[in-house]
């Protein structure tokens, strides 16, 4: 029960942060960090996979409505929700670690950084490619992916350090 409340709260806070702060933050139009992904990363690892997929779909859809980008975040977040359990299963053998909310302490610092980085890059690649749908300046999209992913990963790791 407690876990439910924690996750819903995290969802609301991240949605507000994303819509009111991060979406307005652009360094030379290159960087649009999407810290919102943290909600998907921090879901309990014990969640059944179909539930996680539906949550990812819904979370992306809600963000899409706020950003006027119908379909883009939905596709990107669903992809993160599909890959995350595979990644966690692959990287963490010790089952005791899987009970908590994923964080630097429960997963081990290095593993957590790797999982966050992979999922964020995946999400941002999907997001920016779909946003750029049918446009030719692909190098611009590439720079956006790299810079934004870097920023998002740093913010998520910063939040993780703050929590302790």
């Amino acid at each position, binding site marked *: 029960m407690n876990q439910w409340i924690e996750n819903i709260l995290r969802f609301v806070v991240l949605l*507000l942060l994303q*819509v*009111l702060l991060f*979406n307005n933050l*652009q360094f030379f*139009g290159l960087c*649009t960090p999407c810290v919102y992904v943290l909600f998907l990363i921090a879901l309990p690892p014990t969640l059944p*996979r*179909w539930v996680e*997929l*539906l949550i*990812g*779909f819904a979370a*992306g*859809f809600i963000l*899409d*409505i*706020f*950003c*006027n*980008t*119908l*379909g*883009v975040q*939905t*596709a990107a977040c*669903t*992809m993160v929700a*599909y890959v995350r359990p595979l990644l966690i299963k692959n990287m963490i053998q010790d089952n005791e670690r899987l009970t908590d909310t994923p964080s630097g302490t429960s997963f081990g610092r290095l593993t957590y950084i790797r999982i966050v980085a992979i999922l964020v890059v995946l999400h941002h690649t999907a997001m920016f490619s*779909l*946003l*750029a*749908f049918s*446009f030719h*300046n692909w190098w*611009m999209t590439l720079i956006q992916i790299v810079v934004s992913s870097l920023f998002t990963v740093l913010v998520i790791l910063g939040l993780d350090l703050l929590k302790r």
Partner: protein
Amino acid sequence: MRTLLQFLVKYSILLLFLVLEIVAFILLVRHNNYPQSAVLSSANRVSATLYEAGSTVSDYFSLRTQNRVLMDENAELRNRIAALENKLEGVEEDSLAQYVYADKNIEVRAAKVINNSTHLQRNYMTLNKGERDGVGIDMGVVSKEGVVGIVSAVSEKYAVVIPVLNPKVSISCKLRKNGYVGTLHWDGKDYRFAELQDIARHIDVNEGDTIVTSGYSDVFPENLPVGIIDKAELTESDAYYNIKVRLAVNFKTIEYVSVIENKNREEQKLLEGVTQNK
């Protein structure tokens, strides 16, 4: 049959994933074709209220500049009133004036921008005025500096605008000095510049020329500022100029806009429709 069931059970998660992704893609493609839905855009009540709350906070940071802009505009309007009054004095004696119909077919409504983007390849803008304030689809939106965009969706209290910074919009423009008409189009790169197309090579075009609306569409009245020519290129084999226009409006700092309603639009459309059907 059993193998099929086994297959379905084994790959159920992958299948669910694929189905959800397909739904997302359908949303994406359909949304690109039909942006009219007010519920699934930032004009819906929840997200618009949130954006409005956010913008009340950020408003305080720009009060000083906004004040100055409004004062400038006040002064300019006052000057124009004075100039018009001067003119009127001379005209009132003249009985000709009463035979001329006043061109009162345009109504302007002020609105505030509560959400805006400039960095995407398809940008949108949300206004705090909607249907109940008289804002409707396909009305033109301008700011003090010039043309901003066209209303694409309205809910009761909010409206979504497709600004010039969206390739879905093209605006009929002309060179102010000689009246040649072209089409303004955004290429998705820089929020300060757009391209002017269809200006043929024999036309005299220089850097620094002013671009204004042509008045050929029923959305914008004539002679509203659009921008200034930044660069005009013509290679040997081109039939048309490559013109880069510096937009008059700064979309990064835009806060207050006016929505223009052309009251004669229906009449004009109807008439044009009748003629085309013959």
